[in-house]
């Protein structure tokens, strides 16, 4: 096969219907199977019981931005104000990741639980934050199809 090069420029990230690619430096979706190994008399036997996934995001912090990903996730995970209105940390939000290759595209679709992104700042440095959004089990779908 020929060498395939894919960069972050080929990737878009949408969370709860908002495209956040311009703010995100890197993203990684990982599926980590929970696989038990049983040592039987006939050799090892394997059983995957669950397949949890999560999305790790490193992004340019956008707190204090109207419509930013930080405020959006915080609003769902922690709620707004002292009344914590709209707080719904156990209600997953939809995400879509699309990676466009030369001939085919891969789409990851699923639901992740909102978490409050960290806030940070260091001198004159650009504030970069990293956090993980755990996936709702059983919602992940991955498809690879010919480019439209």
């Amino acid at each position, binding site marked *: 096969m020929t060498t395939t090069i894919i960069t*972050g*420029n*080929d*990737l*878009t*990230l949408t969370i709860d219907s908002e495209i956040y*690619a*311009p*703010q*995100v*430096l*890197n*993203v990684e979706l990982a599926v980590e199977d929970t696989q038990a190994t049983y040592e039987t008399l006939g050799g090892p036997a394997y059983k995957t019981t669950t397949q949890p996934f999560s999305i790790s995001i490193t992004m*340019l912090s956008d707190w204090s931005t109207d419509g930013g990903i930080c405020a959006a996730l915080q609003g769902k995970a922690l709620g707004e104000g002292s009344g914590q209105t709209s707080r719904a940390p156990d209600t997953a939000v939809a995400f879509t990741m699309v990676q466009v290759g030369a001939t085919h595209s891969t789409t990851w679709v699923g639901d992740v639980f909102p978490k409050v992104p960290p806030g940070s700042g260091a*001198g*004159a*440095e*650009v504030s970069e934050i990293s956090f993980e959004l755990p996936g709702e089990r059983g919602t992940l779908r991955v498809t690879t199809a010919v480019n439209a």
Partner: protein
Amino acid sequence: MSAVTLGSIRATFATAIGQAGYKAYSQPLGTVIPPGVVIVPAEPYLEANTLNSGGLIWQLNLTLIVVVAYLDNQAALLNLEDVVVKVCRNLPRGTVFDTVGQPTVEEVGPSSLLTCRIPVSIRANLTNPA
């Protein structure tokens, strides 16, 4: 982040510097009338470091060259310091800068100028050229 052009970003810096009370040149010029600030592209000029940049979402790196007349050592340095502080206080929100370079005497044409460089960067979503 609304879409803009590279020229309008440089113009935004020029306007902000103008509001600080100094003449700003939004592109390199052959002749500079001090005191003023010349906005020039830095190396690298543009960096695409977010997802799906696609050549339109960039980190834009510029160098602000602060220029004052170099007639008297002490007066020129005081003047340069005033310009630097006022310019830095008026940079557009979202501008990243953390250092101001060492003052240096430069000869531009027949004039001696005291200058220093302020590296700045800002992120922009650029308009697709027609």
